[in-house]
């Protein structure tokens, strides 16, 4: 089962919740950081990182001797990554989305595939607190890290997702990027269950509504986690009730939680009263996933 932990607003506690869930998870699990622009999960799970490789996207490289300046590629490219200027074909590799259209189109075969570095894919493992057998176990860790200066995160996210093992019985927890546009949708689109982390403030509510609007059409089971409960107002809880979105956990605001986080600790370990809250959240997520198998479109079911 794939669980995506997402939010509209940034800084509501996605990583806090993902790290705690990963540490407590009672089944074989892989923790995945798909917030490739600002990956943070490793700062709390402290995994042992065992491999790092660079990820590239295919972009065109020009053989000027073959180019007849016909301009077909430039006219076709939707992203203005090629342009005929005077007697040269100019390439703007940072604009390229890697669709391969120009390579397929060039009548002179003057364009060949090259690479643009998107960032790194890092993997390793960490210890969870317990398994169904009651013992700590090794769990997988995977993250993408966007190269600073690279604008496009979805291509790197796709490559990280392609590394996910399709092992039946192993759950996947995805720490998603904030927002509700293409990177966030890319992170949650393959999940079986979506957990939306929010905070009970006007900003939290506003961005939570956007997230519900963006993710609901995916037709996946979805529940809310209200973090820092007790600050702000009751707008988020009222909205959830009106929309029929279950609140799977309320994490009370507590300075001890914020301080444990500031020390890079897993808060469910550091703050005893959160342990039970996170375990209950895990059980609700697993329950929602079990329900989703029976109702999902068979063609879309993975890891069933």
């Amino acid at each position: 089962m794939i669980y995506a932990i997402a939010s509209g607003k940034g800084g509501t506690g996605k990583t806090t919740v993902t790290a705690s869930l990963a540490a407590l998870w009672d089944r074989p699990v892989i923790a995945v950081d798909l917030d490739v622009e600002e990956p943070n999960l490793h700062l709390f799970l402290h995994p042992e990182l065992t491999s790092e490789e660079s990820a590239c996207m295919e972009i065109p490289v020009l053989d000027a001797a073959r180019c007849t300046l016909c301009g077909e590629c430039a006219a076709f490219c939707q992203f203005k990554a090629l342009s005929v200027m005077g007697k040269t074909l100019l390439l703007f590799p940072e604009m390229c989305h890697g669709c391969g259209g120009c390579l397929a189109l060039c009548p002179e075969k003057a364009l060949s595939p090259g690479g643009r570095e998107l960032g790194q894919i890092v993997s390793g493992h960490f210890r969870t607190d317990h398994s169904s057998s009651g013992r700590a176990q090794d769990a997988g860790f995977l993250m993408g890290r966007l190269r600073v200066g690279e604008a496009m995160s979805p291509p790197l996210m796709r490559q990280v997702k392609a590394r996910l093992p399709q092992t039946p019985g192993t759950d996947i927890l995805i720490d998603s990027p904030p927002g509700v546009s293409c990177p966030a949708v890319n992170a949650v689109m393959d999940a079986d269950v979506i957990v939306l982390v929010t905070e009970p403030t006007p900003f939290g509510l506003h961005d939570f509504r956007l997230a519900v609007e963006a993710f609901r059409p995916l037709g996946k089971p979805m529940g809310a986690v209200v973090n820092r409960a007790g600050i702000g107002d009751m707008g988020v809880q009222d909205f959830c009730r009106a929309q029929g979105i279950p609140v799977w956990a309320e994490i009370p605001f507590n300075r001890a939680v914020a301080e444990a986080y500031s020390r890079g600790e897993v808060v469910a370990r550091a703050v005893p009263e959160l342990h039970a809250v996170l375990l209950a959240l895990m059980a609700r997520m697993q329950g929602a996933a079990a329900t989703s198998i029976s109702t999902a479109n068979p063609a879309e079911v993975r890891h069933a």
Partner: protein
Amino acid sequence: MRELVIISGKGGTGKTSITAAFAHLASLQGGAMLCDLDVDAPDLHLLLSPEHNEEHAFRSGFEAVIDPALCTGCGTCAELCRFGAVRPGQGDDGTGWRIDALRCEGCKVCVQFCPAQAIGFTEKHCGQWYASGTRFGPMIHAQLFPGEENSGRLVALLKKEARTRAEALGLSLLLCDGAPGIGCPVIASLSGASQAVLVTEPTPSGRHDLERVADLCRHFRIPAAVIINKSDLNLQNSADIEQYCQEQGHTLLGRLPHDEVVVRAMVQAKCVTELPATPFSEALRSIWERIVHLEPKAAARPVLFQPKPNA
């Protein structure tokens, strides 16, 4: 024109609350053009209550649509699509192909190479943008429709509109609230900026993300100045961030305490500086004075950019 962009890398560090207070303080000193460049999850309007004077559609990019009446089911489109957007099963009997709009990149490859010319290409309406008035001055802002793309293009459009209108109004300051992250909308918001203000917090993620967004500013040669919010959550981390700023040549603007006044102001749709004075609002006022008097300077250490392998 001076162009300040408030960003943070990590979300939830207080960008928007701080930008709104700066908008208030700037309005007492000649005013500014305000701009919310977090087009994906904009929140500045919740504090500034803008009245929309103009509303415009934002159209950008295209998406492919297969016409089932023309599709022969040959599968050329599925073979060529690099984005996994062509999915089997368009007809009721599960045959043929369909385009998953969420995965479609709008690259036109399937349209170009479909032997039956069965794929149309339609322009997308991705969001709305607004020119508004607020109690602190004019504001340009937008809402990308949930799940849409091209946020970088929308950010660029907002900045262009904001600049043109600021010039027409004789405003010499453009104050922009940015998005979290370091990807396309953030890069677009930094384009042409004269100063980036980075809001961080003394946590491992705040620090980690500050370094990446500061490296991004250096990459584009935009000077960076740093505010440490919620600084008393971890004094050691705050001191470490200050040392990092000194070493890297980033201006240190000051510390703000962790204070519930930020949420109290938000619930009332006000800026912290509009409420009775608190240690938070006083610290923020002195930070604003420092920003106003910042000497224009080049980006920190204009050395050749080299991303750290383990940043």
